[in-house]
C-alpha cells in the first residue's frame, strides 16, 4: 500500500482506466495542454493524444451534454468541470438529461458518465468560486454522488464510478488534492453506499464527507483531550447514503453532529439530521446538531472566510453541548 496524494491517486486511477478501456475519453477545460487546473490530468495529452484527452471550449453546458451523448453512443466519458461553481452552467444537462434519460426512455437508454468537479472553499477565491453544492446533486434521483475524503477513497470510489452504468457526480475537495495516504493498488473498489467509520468512539458521532471529515476528525482530537470519545463517520457517497452505518453509530453514542461546508439552511446536513431523527428518535439524548458554513456569500478577506467555514472548535463545542 504505497503512500500517495489524493491528486496522484486520481491521476493513476484515471490513467489505468484510459489504458484498460479504449472507450474511456476525457473532456474538459484545460485538461490537456494546461495539464488540468488541479494537475490531475498532467501528462495525459502527451500519453493518450487529443482524441482521448479533449480540451474543450469554455462551454460547460455542451461539454456535459456531449459527455451524456457520448455515453449514450457507447463511450465511457469522464467530464471534468474544473470546479463545481461552473457546473451551475451545466445544471440543466445534469438534472434534465443525465439523471432522467434511463427513466424517461422506459429503461432503453442509460448514461454511464462520470462528471468530476473540484469543490469547496478556503483559499480566498471569493463568492463566485467557493461553492459546496454537492448536496444539490444528492437531491436528484437518477444521479449518484461520490464524495471521497482519503486518497484511498479517491481511487476506490473512482474505480467504482467508472464501472457504474449510471451518471456519477464525483466531488474533489480542493483542500484534499495535496493530502497523502495509503492507497491500495490493483482493482481496488469501494462500493457506493458504504460509509467508513473513520474513527471509533462512544460518546458522540461526528458525521462528515469530503473535506469536512478533516474538521470532524480534528474536533475528535480536541474532544479526546477534553475527555470525550467521538466517533467519526466518513460518508464516502451522499447518494446512495449509508443510513445503516449512521444510525448504528448514533444508537451507540446517542448524540450526533453533522459537519458540512455548505450553507446550513436548506442544506444536506438537514437531511442527515432528519434521517437520524426518523430512525433513531428514541436513541437520541439530544437533538442532532449541525455545524455548517455561514449563511452568507463567501467573502474574500481571509479572516472572514475562515469565520464562514466550520472549524474544529465549533464542532467540538457543538458536541460538548450535547454531552
Amino acid at each position: 500500500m504505497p503512500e500517495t496524494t489524493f491528486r496522484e491517486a486520481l491521476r493513476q486511477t484515471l490513467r489505468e482506466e484510459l489504458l484498460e478501456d479504449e472507450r474511456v475519453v476525457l473532456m474538459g477545460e484545460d485538461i490537456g495542454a494546461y495539464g488540468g487546473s488541479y494537475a490531475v490530468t498532467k501528462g495525459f495529452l502527451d500519453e493518450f493524444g487529443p482524441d482521448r484527452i479533449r480540451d474543450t471550449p469554455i462551454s460547460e453546458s455542451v461539454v456535459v451534454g456531449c459527455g451524456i451523448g457520448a455515453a449514450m453512443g457507447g463511450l465511457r466519458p469522464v467530464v471534468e468541470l474544473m470546479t463545481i461553481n461552473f457546473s451551475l452552467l451545466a445544471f440543466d444537462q445534469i438534472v434534465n438529461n443525465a439523471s432522467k434519460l434511463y427513466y424517461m426512455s422506459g429503461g432503453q437508454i442509460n448514461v454511464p458518465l462520470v462528471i468530476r468537479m473540484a469543490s469547496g472553499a478556503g483559499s480566498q477565491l471569493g463568492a463566485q468560486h467557493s461553492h459546496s453544492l454537492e448536496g444539490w446533486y444528492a437531491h436528484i434521483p437518477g444521479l449518484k454522488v461520490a464524495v471521497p475524503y482519503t486518497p484511498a477513497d479517491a481511487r476506490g470510489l473512482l474505480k467504482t464510478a467508472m464501472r457504474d452504468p449510471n451518471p456519477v457526480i464525483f466531488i474533489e475537495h480542493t483542500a484534499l488534492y495535496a493530502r497523502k495516504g495509503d492507497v491500495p493498488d490493483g482493482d481496488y473498489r469501494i462500493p457506493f453506499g458504504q460509509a467508513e467509520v473513520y474513527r471509533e468512539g462512544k460518546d458522540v458521532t461526528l458525521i462528515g464527507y469530503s473535506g469536512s471529515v478533516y474538521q470532524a476528525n480534528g474536533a475528535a482530537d480536541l474532544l479526546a483531550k477534553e475527555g470525550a470519545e467521538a466517533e467519526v463517520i466518513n460518508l464516502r457517497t451522499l447518494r446512495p447514503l449509508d443510513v445503516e452505518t449512521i444510525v448504528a453509530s448514533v444508537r451507540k453514542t446517542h448524540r450526533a453532529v453533522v459537519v458540512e461546508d455548505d450553507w446550513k439552511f436548506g442544506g444536506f446536513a438537514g437531511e442527515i439530521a432528519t434521517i437520524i431523527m426518523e430512525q433513531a428518535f428514541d436513541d437520541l439524548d439530544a437533538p442532532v446538531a449541525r455545524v455548517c458554513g455561514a449563511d452568507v456569500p463567501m467573502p474574500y478577506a481571509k479572516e472572514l472566510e475562515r469565520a464562514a467555514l466550520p472549524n474544529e472548535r465549533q464542532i467540538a463545542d457543538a458536541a460538548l453541548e450535547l454531552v
Partner: protein
Amino acid sequence: MTQLADKPPVKELDKGQRIDLLRQMMLIRRFEEKAAEMYARQRIAGFLHLYIGEEAVGVGAIAALNDDDYLVTHYRDHGHALARGSDPGRVMAELFGKDTGVSRGKGGSMHLFDAQRFFMGGYAIVAGHLPLACGLALASKQLGNGRITVCIFGDGAVNEGEFHEALNLAVVWKLPVIFLCENNFYGMGTDIRQVSAVIEVYKRAQAYAMPAEQVDGMDVLAMYEATQRVARAVRAGDGPVFLEAITYRFRGHSMADPEFYRGKDEVQEWRKHDPIEGFRRTLADEGVLDDAHHQALQADIEEVVNEATRFAEESPFPRPEALYENVYKEGEA
C-alpha cells in the same frame, strides 16, 4: 448492421419509394388528427404538440438517412418517430400513457424513445438536446461505426446558449452531425422577427464557418435531396452541416394555444402549400399515383391508425411498481 452505403440520390428513387414518402406523410397526418381527437376525449393528457403541416421535413430528411444513423429531436416528435419506423400502435400507446408505449408510458408525447431504431428521443427543454447530438456524433466518430447524427429543433431553439455551444463544438471537433432546424416562424406564440437578430436561421451557422443552406420544408423531395446530399459529406468526415427547413405549423403550438399571435389569413395562405396535397398532385401529374391508388392508400392508413388506437386503448397501464423501476440501471456499464 452499420450500412456505410448512402441512400440513393433523389432522382434514383423509384415509384414505390416516392409513393412511400407520400404514404408516410399521410400516416403522420392521420395519426395526429386521431391523437387530437383522443386528447379531446381525454385519452391523452399533458402537452401534445402536433406536426401537422410540417410532415415533409421529417419524412424527407429521415428517408435520406441510414436506419442506424442517430436521430435526436425536440418535443414535437410524433412525425419523426413514425418516419423512423416506430410502430404507430406503440407510439399511440405512449401518448395514452400505457405500458406498451415506446417509452413504457413514462415519457409521453414529448419523450418518445425507440433506441432499437436509433431514435434517441424527443426532448422538452428547448435546445437541450443539441449537446447530446454532439456526443452521439463524437461516439460514432471515435468508434468508427460510420453513423451520423441528425438533430432536429425549431427556430426558437436558435437563441438558446446551447445552440451556440453545440455548433461551435461540432465544428471544432469536426463531428458528423446534421443540425436540422424546422423554421416554422414561431416559437410558441413568439414571431421569430421579434426575437432573432438574424431571421434567416441558416446564416447563424456562418459564425462557426459551418456549411449551411435553406430548404423548402413543404417539399418532401427537396428535403430528401438536401439531406441525402449533405449526409454523404458528413459521413465522409467533412464535419457538421446546417439545414434550415422553411415550414409552417397548421395547428396551434399545443392543444391549449389560443393563437392570438397570428392571423387566420396567414394560416390559410400556408395551408395552400400543404406538403401532402402538393406531393399527391405531383405524383398524380406524373402518372405515378391515380385516384384509385390514393384512395387505397387512405383506406390502408385509416386502418393502421384505427388499429394503433385500438391497440393503445386496449393496452394495460403500467403496474404501480413501475413507478420505482428504471431510476437506476443495475450491474456494470
